[in-house]
């Protein structure tokens, strides 16, 4: 401390005041953040570590150490391979369907229309409904014996199908149901994306004599790329994890036709009580999702920058 008091803070005083304030800020920040830190450590990061730990064991209580055996078994298990294949088909089918239909609806809605808000709300309806309700609804509609679809087909003398209990139709059916549920969401996202495209681009292009298709191909589609990327990344991630469809609607059948991956994990863990094996399966899927997401983001970013 200098012996002569000055009107302006001396350097050392300033520094001390600044670090005092900074320290106080940091302390308060950490205190306020403490609940969140504890929560995420306990319920997110610890479980991941534990999942990996569990995957290295077998037995009813997952207490017998088997190293990487679970992983090797999983990779060799034909049922796992089949499940992965079915899930991949499902993910691609629903994501592409959602994008195509969502974009189509958004394009239709992105015009001055009477009743625009009504249409938008109606189309969004299925998405804000719990998937459990959606699943039960369609389980009934597509039921081979009491479902209204088959009963109507019978009325009109058209051929019926076994739908959910048919080996050929079960997977397309749940893909269709999932698209029906999710198209409103992608539609809303694409609408927002479309509204972000400046009208001037279209006006300028039209002055140059561009037709609707060119406008779409060269202005709309490229400028929608960020939205499309977002929708496809989210779409793949979520559809790879879908569980309610097999559990509520089809039970994974018929003959494993709709045995989606997470359902297989669930069954192995809580059906056959092999937590170790189920954990290994879960961890494998986790890695796949991480890799896919990083890859999609990298590819997408390169495409957008160009």
């Amino acid at each position: 401390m200098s012996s002569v008091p000055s009107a302006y803070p001396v350097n050392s005083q300033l520094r001390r005041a600044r670090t005092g304030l900074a320290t106080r800020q940091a302390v308060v920040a950490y205190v306020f953040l403490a609940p969140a830190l504890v929560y995420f450590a306990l319920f997110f990061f610890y479980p991941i570590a534990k999942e990996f730990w569990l995957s290295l064991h077998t037995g009813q209580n997952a207490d017998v150490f088997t190293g990487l055996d679970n992983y090797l078994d999983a990779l060799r298990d034909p049922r796992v391979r089949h499940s992965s294949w079915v899930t991949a088909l499902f993910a691609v089918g629903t994501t592409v369907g959602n994008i195509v239909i969502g974009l189509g609806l958004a394009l239709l809605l992105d015009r001055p229309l009477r009743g625009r808000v009504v249409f938008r709300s109606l189309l969004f309806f299925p998405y804000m409904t719990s998937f459990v309700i959606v699943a039960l609804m369609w389980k009934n509609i597509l039921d081979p014996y009491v479902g209204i679809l088959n009963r109507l087909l019978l009325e009109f003398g058209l051929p019926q199908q076994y739908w959910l209990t048919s080996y050929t139709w079960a997977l397309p059916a749940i893909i269709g149901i999932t698209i029906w549920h999710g198209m409103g969401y992608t539609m809303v996202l694409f609408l927002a994306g479309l509204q972000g495209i400046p009208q001037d681009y279209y006006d300028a292009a039209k002055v140059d004599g561009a037709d609707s298709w060119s406008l779409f191909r060269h202005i709309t589609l490229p400028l929608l790329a960020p939205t499309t990327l977002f929708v496809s990344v989210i779409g793949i991630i979520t559809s790879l994890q879908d569980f309610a469809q097999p559990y509520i609607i089809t039970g994974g059948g018929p003959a494993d036709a709709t045995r989606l991956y997470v359902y297989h994990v669930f069954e192995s863990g809580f059906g056959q009580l092999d937590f170790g094996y189920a954990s290994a399966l879960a961890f494998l899927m986790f890695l796949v999702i991480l890799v896919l997401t990083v890859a999609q983001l990298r590819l997408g970013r390169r495409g957008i920058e160009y």
Partner: protein
Amino acid sequence: MNDQPGPGAKVLTYGFLGLFAVATVLPFLYMISLSLQSEAQTMAATPVVIPSSPRWHNYVDIWKLAPFARFFANSVIVAGAITLSHLFFDPLAGYVFAKYEFPLKHVIFVLILGTLMIPFFVRMIPLYVMMSDFGWLNSYQALIVPFLMSAYGIFLMRQFIQPLPNDLIDAARLDGASEFRIYWNIVLPQTKPALATLGLLTFVFQFNEFIWPLIIVNTTTMRTLTIGLTLFNQENFVQWQYTAAGAIILFVPSLVFFLITQRYFVRGIALSGMK
């Protein structure tokens, strides 16, 4: 694309939109119809579209067939508790990230955001084992505690709080107010729209939650509405009129919330997509 389309295009547009709108609404209407039919009607060879004598009594009967009142209460309790917790803890963390500087701030933020990438099924088995170790299986705690906060909520609140002006905060500090009081009395009241959105989204999402209650609960009295309805359907699958009635009952809270907050919901999702 704002120029007036020709009449042909207009017909096509309304046609397609109308078709899809019908496709989305029809199954719901059919569910309502189904819930008012008798068992025989639900299976009749000629499908009943509008039942001649609607059996409103189905909605009364259903409460006796399974403890739906209990299921409903459980869902409300669990979703409500989780929502309240989110509304308390998420803004607090969001505020810290928005208005404070401290070492490792960026690292911690990225880590927390990173949790959004973690699929639930990776956590579900370890969480189950944890709940089992705590002795919390089949309890309200197990249904609530793993979901007390979310990175999504924290991120949402942080984005909302960041642009708020600092003057009031600085003035309060000069006046000697404690940091928590500043948060509680000055910052929080300004975040009402974001809190409303977060509360709604959280409640609806948790009300419709399915996998976790399925795993954790194994007695009838603790089941939530989503699980209760599903199990009811699996055991009594022939009685579709009751399943339909149950589905409508499950649907009502979501519908009410949706109608009240239609604008927030759709705008909120659109905004989150633009990032």
